[in-house]
């Protein structure tokens, strides 16, 4: 069902796009006809696949590292007041500075390779993951904690068996948001300086007036982002199937 809907949306976008090019008679170096783009897509499929794989790897690495750091930070924040007092302002400041403004610095420090893009993606998802998980950890049902205390549970086992599991739905929402924004980090990193990846391909094609290739790269990126989001969403829905919110989502679809 969802596939049919996606297909219909995709086809309608193509149709509207086609109509715009016909009506406005825009030259192909401003807005190429979808037919041209599809042609470019097919003739450059090897290139797109190669660069797409690079960008996907950057996104996945960024997501993984951001998730790990986010989880660790959230636990520290939830458990140590000192950590809260010192880390919270840093976290907020790190969000106040636009990550894009950091991109040139990161490229300068980490080079033109993959590392600077992974760092960008990591930075961009770190905050939503940390904030959501921290919030979840703080909202543990007090009754659960009381019960655990009367069962003589240690702080460590309360964290492991009660607070973390009950914060997993919150972490899942944070991670969903992170999955949606992670590609932005990777692409911006590639724009600032790189020799590989879809962002690089777009700039490169733009410089040579190959606007059809640029659009083909854009579509490849959208496809990666959407596929990734739905894969993560499906996985998370399954993983936290006990949560009432999840049931709501399942019923809604």
């Amino acid at each position, binding site marked *: 069902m969802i596939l049919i809907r996606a297909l219909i949306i995709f086809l309608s976008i193509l149709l509207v796009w086609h109509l715009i090019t016909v009506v406005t008679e825009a030259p192909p170096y401003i807005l190429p006809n979808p037919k041209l783009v599809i042609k470019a897509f097919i003739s450059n499929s090897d290139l797109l696949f190669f660069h797409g794989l690079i960008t996907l790897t950057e996104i996945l690495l960024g997501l993984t590292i951001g998730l790990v750091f986010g989880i660790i930070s959230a636990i520290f924040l939830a458990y140590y007041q000192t950590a809260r007092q010192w880390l919270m302002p840093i976290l907020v400041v790190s969000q106040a500075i636009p990550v894009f403004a950091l991109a040139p610095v990161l490229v300068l420090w980490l080079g033109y390779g993959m590392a600077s893009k992974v760092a960008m993606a990591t930075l961009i998802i770190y905050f939503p993951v940390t904030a959501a998980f921290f919030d979840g950890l703080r909202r543990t049902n007090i009754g659960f904690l009381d019960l655990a205390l009367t069962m003589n549970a240690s702080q460590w086992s309360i964290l492991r068996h009660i607070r973390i599991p009950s914060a997993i739905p919150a972490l899942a929402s944070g991670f969903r948001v992170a999955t949606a924004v992670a590609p932005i980090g990777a692409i911006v990193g590639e724009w600032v300086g790189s020799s590989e990846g879809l962002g690089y391909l777009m700039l490169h094609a733009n410089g040579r007036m190959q606007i059809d290739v640029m659009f083909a790269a854009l579509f490849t990126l959208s496809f990666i982002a959407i596929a990734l989001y739905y894969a993560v969403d499906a996985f998370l829905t399954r993983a936290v199937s006990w949560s009432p919110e999840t*049931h709501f989502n399942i019923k809604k679809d």
Partner: protein
Amino acid sequence: MLNDQNFSVEIKIKEFSYNQEVLFKNFNFILKSGEWSCLLGGSGVGKTTLLRCFAGLQTGYGNIEVSCSDGGQLGTRISYMAQNDLLFPWLTALENITIGNKLRGQRIDEEKGLYYLNLVGLLKNKYDLPDKLSGGMRQRIALARTLMENRQIVLMDEPFSNLDTITKLKMQDLASELLKTSTVLIVTHDPMEAIRLGNRVYVLYERPCRLKQPIKIDKNKPRQITDTNLLELHAQLLNQLSFEQNNGLET
């Protein structure tokens, strides 16, 4: 474990305040071994606070001393049942019952868990998540979890108040059957529950808290609701309760 011994528990509160209000002052209370004590009183009088003091959960200003008559530590001899069943929604019925093992880092005794699950009649639901079960079933699992802990003293905070009347009566029967030899403290709003289950029924009143002369009931628990004697006691208790509430309103 020390759970077969006969010992009573005494709580002495020199002074305890909550939100700058003195709730208890020079307050003494004894839980007699093997008896069910019921605690009633108007809302906000301090019933739950008292129960939480026994459970070691009450934080706040004050001087609270809880001691067992045999000198043992109370902390490892109590189990706690709340108004809410407090089942972990991500764990199956069986995993919920054995959660104490897990939290203490012990080996998970599934056999024992299944035994208690069977005792509350929910063996077939062992792999169900709490979400799938009715309120009554959930509270039965909470009861099985309490039994699994195998503690001599059971503290219950309005354990059946969320259930419909018939389920409630069934739960009372089941609990009093399964916790026959335990020392139990129940906080309740329901005079009939107190009369059915309690060996001693206490009414808390005034601020700082004071206790009425307890109503002692010697008959076997649970008492049947058709028992005329019960109705008399019920009336007596209601009288005590409403007298205090009326007094409270006038002052």
